[in-house]
């Protein structure tokens, strides 16, 4: 359904100091009927890639193909079949929700009777009856997001693109949006969403791609990516709060244990130990080893590899660390200018 080939995009041109390489040879392929997640920290290039896909931005190089149509030479044909729900919800505060949807319908050239009926369906589907005739300026974040989703779905697109659809939403609105996205996928719409929530991508996506520094660095189904990592994760605390010395001693002890691949001291979690073990049989061995050394066990938790582990493996850091590292570096003003057209 979507083929992005070798996309590159630089912002701020001119001097090398101020320019930002938003996309660096990004390649992505999304099969038809798939609910596809684009996972990455803020600033990884997800939004830029989606904006290029939606014909809002021209790449410096590379190609965009949507349903066999070239997005760069036939943008209007591509626009017809995609719905785009942008990250920053742009609504007209003066219009009511229904008026906004009617405007949207006219921009997509829906016949007015059909448009009216379609708006009615979406109001029911997204639970907007109570407030749809109020002015958009009075809406909460969740209402705006639902309205924007309705606007994206109005013309029944074959492809729905959502940029961080649930950021900052209440639980109820988020659940509502998740449910609609699943229904869409079940009925044949291809859905591409970006997110920096592991949980969201894990819960929703049939396939996902991890985007880092403008490139796709891992791609596959969540299960396959996790299985490819192999092994189980074990979190061990000998005491509620250990000190560095004890943690190091336990680390040295367990590293020798057969079946243990890796032992890392997690200083931010009270010197707990994070282990990667071959299989669940190793757990018993660990317990015996600790007992023999006369060490207590405060907590011992075992889990299958998570998406966060996949991310860690692919990038060398956790998603949260990646978020934190760019948190102070981004300039919202500059980014807003970049998204201005």
């Amino acid at each position, binding site marked *: 359904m979507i083929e992005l080939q070798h996309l590159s995009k630089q912002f701020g041109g001119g001097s090398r100091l101020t320019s930002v390489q938003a996309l660096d040879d990004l390649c992505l392929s999304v099969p038809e009927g798939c609910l596809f997640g684009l996972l990455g920290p803020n600033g990884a290039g997800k939004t830029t890639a989606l904006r290029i896909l939606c014909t809002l931005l021209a790449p410096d190089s590379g190609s965009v193909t949507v349903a066999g149509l070239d997005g760069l030479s036939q*943008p209007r044909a591509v626009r017809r079949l995609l719905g785009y729900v942008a990250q920053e919800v742009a609504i007209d505060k003066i219009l009511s929700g229904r008026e906004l949807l009617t405007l*949207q319908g006219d*921009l997509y050239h829906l016949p007015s009777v059909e448009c009216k009926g379609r708006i009615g369906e979406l109001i029911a589907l997204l639970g907007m009856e109570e407030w749809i005739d109020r002015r958009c300026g009075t809406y909460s974040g969740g209402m705006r997001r639902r309205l924007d989703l309705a*606007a994206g779905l109005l013309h029944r697109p074959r492809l729905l693109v959502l940029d961080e659809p649930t950021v900052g939403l209440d639980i109820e609105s988020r659940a509502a949006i998740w*449910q609609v996205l699943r229904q869409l996928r*079940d009925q044949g*719409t291809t859905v591409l969403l970006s997110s920096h929530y592991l949980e969201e991508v894990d819960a929703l996506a049939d396939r996902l791609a991890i985007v880092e520094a403008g490139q796709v660095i891992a791609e596959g189904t969540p299960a396959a990516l996790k299985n490819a990592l192999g092994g189980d994760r074990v979190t061990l605390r000998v005491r509620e709060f250990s000190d560095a010395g004890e943690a190091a001693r336990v680390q040295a002890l367990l590293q020798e244990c057969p079946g243990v691949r890796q032992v890392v001291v997690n200083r931010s979690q009270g010197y707990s130990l994070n282990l990667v073990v071959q299989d669940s049989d190793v757990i018993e061995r660990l317990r015996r080893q600790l007992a023999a050394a006369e060490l207590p066990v405060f907590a011992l938790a075992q889990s299958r590899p998570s998406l966060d582990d996949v991310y860690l493996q692919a990038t060398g850091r956790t998603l949260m660390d990646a978020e934190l590292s760019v948190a102070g570096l981004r300039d919202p003003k500059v980014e807003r200018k970049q998204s201005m057209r």
Partner: protein
Amino acid sequence: MTSATPSLGPLQAVPNEPSAFAEIRQETLALTRRLFVQLARRPSTLVAGVLQPLIWLVLFGALFANAPEGLLPGGGSYGRFLGAGVIVFTAFSAALNAGLPVMFDREFGFLNRLLVAPLRSRSSIVLASVLYITSLSLVQSLAIMVTAALLGYGWPGAAGLLLVLVTLLLLVFAVTALSLGLAFALPGHIELIAVIFVANLPLLFASTALAPISFMPIWLGWLAALNPLTFAIEPIRAAYGGSFHLSNVVLNAPYGDLSAATCLGILAALAVGLFLAIRPLLDRKLT
């Protein structure tokens, strides 16, 4: 939340594509409707827009009521002279500001909603603004003309009304295109407001809105004779002067005499030229 409904499935078969005209009409009218809904819910723009030219008319008319005899070529009253200038200047100001809502749409991201939609032509955005500003200008002009009539400055008659309509349409088209072009070319609303601020009053003073060319220093006379506002003002002023024909000479420019038809022709050429000139800006890299 209802359970799965078939309506969530994508539309596979694209229905018969309507004609380009029908699509452009639909999107233009929808965008125009939005501007009018905004106006209806924020009527202060309209109130101020009607009051301001009336204040111009009354105060400026009074200011020069005692102007020396030979100031005006025809020898009429200054108020009668001023009416056409205020009508045109009011429409011009409104059109010059047409880019502001578009600029705010850019800054708030609403424009993305328009650009990601399969608009048959992005010129619809321009056409919607032209329709809106022209209608607004007509309301303003009627208010000005009625007030002028009440002040004893005369009434241009039915032909004059038609002439006002045509002239304003051409001028508004040209200036709106220019303003929208600026709204797409400039980085933000601060810059756009600066340009509007710098362009607005000087263009008024360097036109025949407030004084005839014969009253100006030679260099200013030349400027006024090249100013598009002058080409809009003079035919309307001629209509106020009594019997009017398109072939009448309405402007004695330093480079020669111009008929009303020539003035309107120049405005039309300007409108078409500016409209064509800004189209690449609307389309940017992606058409």
